[in-house]
């Protein structure tokens, strides 16, 4: 043990690298490509930082605000379901270059979202997707046995409810509009927004808790 370093803790247990270095070939190629794109003037490092900051500012609260507005304003709900991209612009959000599509849950239909090919998610609006959304287990099984997967999330559906799985394979990004819970008729839009969870916007939660 070196001089001046005679304390008791075990470095093999406490050591953590202070900065993650790229470990895979792909990560190294990615870093090199980024440097080349910036050097060639396709975008600046500042612009990249702004995009990262905007994504870090995104959260399910944005989706909750949109859904709560749709609950209290029938005309807005109609616009949201018909043309999600323009309807969220009204509230100051945008998801360009992707199309934004909102799927309405009803007593007869339950919607749930997945991306089987990778892990597409409206990240710029709702923030980072949950780890399970990116898992191969969820991605492979949700399209194959959605009722079983939903039951594992605590969503059990009767035979009278259609399950509609949405595979986000290309240019659209999705959000579920959950059903407004009963007994909230006199609630304000802000109070309603607080009921809406991230999972209810993906469709792995159905009955919101009041």
């Amino acid at each position, binding site marked *: 043990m070196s001089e001046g370093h005679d304390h008791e803790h075990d470095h093999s247990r406490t050591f953590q690298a202070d900065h993650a270095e790229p470990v895979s070939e792909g990560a190294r190629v990615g870093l090199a490509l980024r440097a080349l794109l910036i050097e060639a003037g396709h975008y600046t490092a500042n612009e990249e930082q702004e995009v990262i900051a905007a994504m870090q500012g995104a959260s399910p609260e944005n989706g909750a605000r949109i859904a709560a507005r749709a609950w209290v304003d029938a005309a807005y709900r109609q616009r949201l379901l018909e043309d999600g991209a323009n309807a969220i612009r009204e509230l100051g959000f945008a998801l360009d270059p992707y199309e934004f599509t909102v799927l309405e849950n009803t007593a007869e239909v339950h919607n749930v979202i997945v991306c089987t090919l990778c892990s597409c998610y409206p990240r710029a609006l709702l923030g980072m997707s949950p780890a399970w959304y990116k898992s191969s287990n969820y991605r492979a099984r949700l399209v194959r046995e959605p009722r079983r997967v939903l039951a594992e999330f605590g969503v059990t559906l009767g035979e009278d409810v*259609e399950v509609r799985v949405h595979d986000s394979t290309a240019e659209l990004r999705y959000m579920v509009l959950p059903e407004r819970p009963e007994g909230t008729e006199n609630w304000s839009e802000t109070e309603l927004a607080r009921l809406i969870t991230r999972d209810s916007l993906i469709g792995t939660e159905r009955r919101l808790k009041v």
Partner: protein
Amino acid sequence: MSLPLFRPGQTVRIAARTPAVHHRVPAYAKGKLGTIERICGVHGDPEKFIGSDGKPAQRLYRVRIPQKTLWPDYSGTAMDHLDIEIFEHWLEAAE
């Protein structure tokens, strides 16, 4: 851009080919019959992003497929469906 080749409600078949390039049609949907749920605008073709910036762009649709069509042993109800985004050059009329 030309007019859409397919209209909402029309029955279509998704092509069963497997090009050697990156493409956005999962294996489970290839060769399956569905109906056009909606037309979703025109977008860069994911198979053409190397070399030609995704051009010519392709019209995109959402296709609705019964789960029983995808998986004959599907254990849920006959009314369960899956909606998937498919580019026009992967579709053919099946009526």
